[in-house]
């Protein structure tokens, strides 16, 4: 059935001509190893009963390392028996040491529940005396006391650890003084702001463990990213050993990159991913191929699932028996469990999901995985592709590109996709805003000594600062928490700022909250009279009340959307370092970003005509963050080629380059487009030259600027590639954006290509001349 399908695809001319690459990843034999001799026989029996009588080599290696009390990070693909890597050594140790405990951290509640049921299956089958409890916001208070006192394995998430467990650690003495292992699964999720927070949570946890005399071993698992060991060591702030030699077998895998055909070559419009993915999924499902479709938004998930079900609802053949479900965040846990179960049992043949199913939730093996749009990172793509494929049979994964620049870059560069390591993840646990918040929480938990180590280099200064603020008291050589508040309550690990604007729908006297948005974004998207799209519904903003963090909207039916004109003013506060590289001077440092929205454009749907302006009166937004600056300095390649551009075009060119760089950078940085901002200056007051600022869009920075400065060569090359290989004529949304103004200044796209060619060509040449 599968080979037949592959053949059908190969023979389908319409499909085949849009394939940009077809990679066949050969089947891999398993590498096995016996269970270690000293594992408790009852554990051997439990696993033997489940059909496991030997280990994969990576599982055995993990076991040995963990027994030596080494911290470990396991990086192997989906369905390679990652869970066993930690469950086996943990259960065995807990069985032999009746006082020992283990803490399991998962990023979501769903994963915690999954792990709980997996552990229950293992532990309860032979009634092992290892009580396992999931401790999160849903845990009833009646269970909490017994969990604290009797739980040997506590499964929780970083948020609960941060706000529920650690501030009350005296209640957890028994657990915390005996905790031997800390398992952090899906460690790659802890990057950017979230990762920087979690690192500080781990700092606090280690501090409390030290206080109670325990020194736990960390067992981490990561999806394939560029720097799993580096990320893990940054999070746990100690050495770890990388285990990435996967011993599990896998079937042959076909990976296809598919670029939907151009509908309008001049404007660069392609056939949409929704229709293309739906068409392909149907083709597979009708042939009995179990298929998962990944989409980038919740709305698309519902849309594609309903299209597929509509097309299958033919009562005259058997197709209507094929069951396809949507799966996304926002469903009830019980609904999710039911879908997962259906997928495992085969009752459900198809599922359309957001990246919610990308993580290690057990849904069994599927045959085909279709990505409706590039998931945002290579590492995510491999995770999603990994959902298709079982140990013995072949599988296929298809990536369908959208018109977005990142998608178009990836689809045109299979070498990039298959040839190199996935993106690296960055965190900056010493971001002062984040660190300051956690220092408060840590001081609440235990007083700080003046020479307290292990909380970042700025600790002494920050403690003094907090003392001046009046929340700490320095006395007898220690800093004590001297405030009535409960600081963990006000610190959220996941949202950018705790000050979100609540969006309230007031249509026909309704008064329902439909969503929320952080304040800076609200100023750009929820200004008075803005058109706001939420879950496919159009609303118009009646009033944005920024002081009270409320925005009132009303259902509307307008034929235009709005786009705020944001004036960004950026000021360099401190330059940390600067070098000449890639034919341009690259500086890195602290910046102050001031954003003000002053007016908005009304843009007609479809034609994208500008049909009017409106004024916006909102206070400016200030942010202190980190940035990388490209300075077109004299005597560099960038400067000389920039000088060749006609003066009247310079502003356009630099502006477009800025957005181009911003658009491709996420490919290399494991972040979202909105995580970075860009500002261009024709003549910067500080540097006195034309320059482009690329800044981290989170107060204080999250390591993105530092990450970017390491890979400027790649990013600039990719930006050049993107624009030069784009088939459009004058620029399109897939590269530098459409050419809006009617002007006779010539073809900007060509101008930019020429500029880039001169710059990077020259840079390369001068680089080659170096000894």
């Amino acid at each position, binding site marked *: 059935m599968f080979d037949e399908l592959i053949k059908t695809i190969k023979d389908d001319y319409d499909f085949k001509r849009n394939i940009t690459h077809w990679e066949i990843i050969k089947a891999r034999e398993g590498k096995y190893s016996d269970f270690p001799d000293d594992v408790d026989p009852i554990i051997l029996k439990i696993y033997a009963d489940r059909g496991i009588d030997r280990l994969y080599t990576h599982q055995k290696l993990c076991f040995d390392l963990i027994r030596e009390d080494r911290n470990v990070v396991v990086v192997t693909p989906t369905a390679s028996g990652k869970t066993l890597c930690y469950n086996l050594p943990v259960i065995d140790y807990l069985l032999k040491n009746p006082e020992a405990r283990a803490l399991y951290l998962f990023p979501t509640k769903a994963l915690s529940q999954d792990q709980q049921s997996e552990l229950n299956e293992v532990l309860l089958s032979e009634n092992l005396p290892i009580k396992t409890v999931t401790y999160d916001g849903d845990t009833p208070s009646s269970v909490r006391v017994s969990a604290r006192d009797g739980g040997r394995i506590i499964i929780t998430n970083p948020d609960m650890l941060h706000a529920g467990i*650690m*501030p*009350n*650690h*005296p*209640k957890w*003495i028994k657990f915390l003084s005996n905790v031997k292992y800390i398992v952090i699964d899906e460690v790659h999720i802890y990057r950017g702001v979230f990762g920087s927070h979690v690192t500080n949570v781990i700092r606090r946890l280690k501090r409390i463990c030290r206080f109670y005399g325990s020194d736990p071993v960390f067992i981490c698992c990561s999806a394939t990213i560029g720097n799993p060991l580096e990320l893990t060591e940054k999070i746990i702030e100690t050495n770890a050993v990388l285990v990435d030699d996967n011993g599990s077998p896998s079937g042959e895998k076909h990976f296809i990159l598919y670029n939907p055909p151009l509908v309008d070559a001049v404007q660069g419009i392609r056939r949409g991913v929704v229709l293309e993915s739906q068409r392909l999924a149907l083709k597979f499902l009708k042939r009995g191929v179990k298929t998962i479709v990944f989409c980038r938004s919740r709305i698309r998930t519902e849309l594609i699932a309903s299209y597929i079900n509509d097309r299958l609802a033919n009562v005259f053949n058997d197709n209507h028996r094929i069951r396809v479900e949507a799966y996304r965040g926002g469903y009830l846990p019980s609904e999710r469990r039911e879908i997962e179960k259906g997928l495992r049992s085969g009752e459900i043949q198809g599922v359309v999901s957001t990246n919610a199913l990308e993580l290690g939730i057990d849904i069994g093996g599927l045959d085909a995985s279709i990505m409706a749009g590039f998931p945002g990172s290579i590492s995510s793509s491999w995770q999603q592709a990994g959902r298709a494929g079982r140990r013995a049979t072949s599988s296929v994964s298809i990536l369908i590109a959208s018109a977005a620049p990142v998608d178009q870059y990836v689809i045109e560069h299979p070498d990039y996709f298959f040839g190199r390591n996935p993106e690296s993840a960055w965190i900056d646990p010493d971001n*002062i*805003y984040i660190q*300051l918040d956690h220092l408060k929480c840590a*001081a*609440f*938990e*235990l*007083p700080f000594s003046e020479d307290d180590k292990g909380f970042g280099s*700025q600790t002494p*200064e*920050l403690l*003094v*600062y907090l003392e*001046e*603020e*009046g929340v700490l*008291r320095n*006395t*007898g050589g*220690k800093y*004590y*928490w*001297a*405030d*009535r*508040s*409960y*600081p963990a309550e006000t610190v959220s690990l996941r949202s950018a700022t705790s*000050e979100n604007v609540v969006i309230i729908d007031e249509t026909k006297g309704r008064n329902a909250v439909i969503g929320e948005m952080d304040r800076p974004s609200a100023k750009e998207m929820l200004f008075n009279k803005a058109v706001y799209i939420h879950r496919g519904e159009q609303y118009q903003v009646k009033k944005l009340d920024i002081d009270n963090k409320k925005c009132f909207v009303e259902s509307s039916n307008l034929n235009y959307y709005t786009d705020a004109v944001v004036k960004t003013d950026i000021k360099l506060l*401190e330059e940390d370092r600067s070098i000449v590289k890639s034919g341009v001077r690259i500086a890195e440092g*602290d910046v*102050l970003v001031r954003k003000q929205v002053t007016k908005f454009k009304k843009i007609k749907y479809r034609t994208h005509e500008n049909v009017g302006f409106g004024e916006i009166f909102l206070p400016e937004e*200030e*942010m*202190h963050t980190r940035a990388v600056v490209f300075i077109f300095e004299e005597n560099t390649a960038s400067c000389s080629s920039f000088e060749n551009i006609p003066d009247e075009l310079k502003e356009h060119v630099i502006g477009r380059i800025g957005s181009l760089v911003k658009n491709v950078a996420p490919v290399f940085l494991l972040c979202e487009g909105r995580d970075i901002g860009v500002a261009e200056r024709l003549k910067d007051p500080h540097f006195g030259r034309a320059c482009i600022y690329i800044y981290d869009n989170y*107060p*204080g920075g999250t390591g993105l600027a530092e990450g970017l400065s390491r890979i400027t060569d790649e990013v600039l090359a990719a930006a050049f590639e993107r624009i030069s290989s784009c088939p459009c004529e004058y620029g399109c949304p897939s590269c530098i954006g459409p050419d809006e103004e009617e002007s006779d200044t010539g073809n900007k796209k060509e101008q930019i290509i020429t500029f880039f060619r001169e710059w990077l060509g020259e840079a390369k040449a001068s680089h080659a001349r170096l000894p």
Partner: protein
Amino acid sequence: MDLKNLRSRIDTIKKQDRPAAVPAGLDTGPREIPPPEAALLLNGWRRLADMVYEKVTLSENPLQPVISDFLMPEQADTAGLFFYDTETTGLGGAGNIVFLTGFGFTEGDAFKTVQIMLTDFPGEPAFLEAMKPYISPERIYVSYNGRAFDANILKSRYALNGMRLNFGYQLDLLYPSRRLWRNVIGSCSLGDIEEKILKKERELDVPGAMVPDLYFDFMRSGDYAAIEGVAAHHLEDIKSLAELLSVFEKIAEDPVRLTKVDRTGLASQLTPRHPETAEAVLEAGFKAGSFKAAKELGLLRKRRGDYDAARGIWENLWESRRSIFAGIELAKQLEHREKDIEKAHSLTCELLSLDRIRIKLVIPELERRRVRLELKLLRMVTRSGCIRRSDS
């Protein structure tokens, strides 16, 4: 990074959210902190250790030598009772400390209160050590919300300092107070109880919510005036505990004649050890026209199997006020015990026709009852008539 730079970085982002870091007029710059010791000693405190002080107060003892089993499993010697209360810097969690503890107990003819105060963080181990002589598993500890709060936070503080806390039996007066008075006076904080039950008036009282800030103020400034009110308030609280217990004792002497309490609550307090008294209290309530007491009395009798006595109550409530609850109980009894199907049916129909019933959730239940009764009636008719063939 130097501190000046750091501060400017933090302030840049924070200034828009916050009016000013320091309230005007409050100088936070470095300065000599006067030791609070002189003021403490002048005000009757005695130094126990660095940063730990004790104050003993004698007052009139409101308690009888023996207390009854009204609130506890058995009678107890008043000498074994320790009344206690704590003042803390917050509502719990590892970062909140206890800075003032007081124990009140009988000594000779007097009521003696020992308050122990911690004047700064580093003295905590000595502070906890100083409390130890007053904590023993053999005594009974009387508190107001101590079971859920004070005992827990003390337990945490001892644990954090590597010590064990071995409390005795906890008699928390919050729960019986709520039982007796919540429906009479509303909120039952110790302050409300003092005002409305003990009829105590406090001059210049310190609101509980201000206590942590006053203490931090005292810690920073060393100015005893900041904490003076808190200490006085704390002392009064402990005395009030003893007075409140003696109020309960008076109630226990003759609960039946009491009028200004929630009789249902009083009865539930009495039920485990004095069921007859509890019933008498409810009867008194029933006679005084309390619907709640009557309802409880009916249920109590029903549970005991005394259906006839219960029936009297239901009938009374149904006749006098068309109580839906009583009506349903009566219908149940008519149907299942007395097998008077016709009467049960007409009562059910009458219940369903009441205007008030429209908003009740009992309609489906009543409808089911009506249908079932009608089927029973029908069966009786067919059985007594001669239409159907004999099916015995």
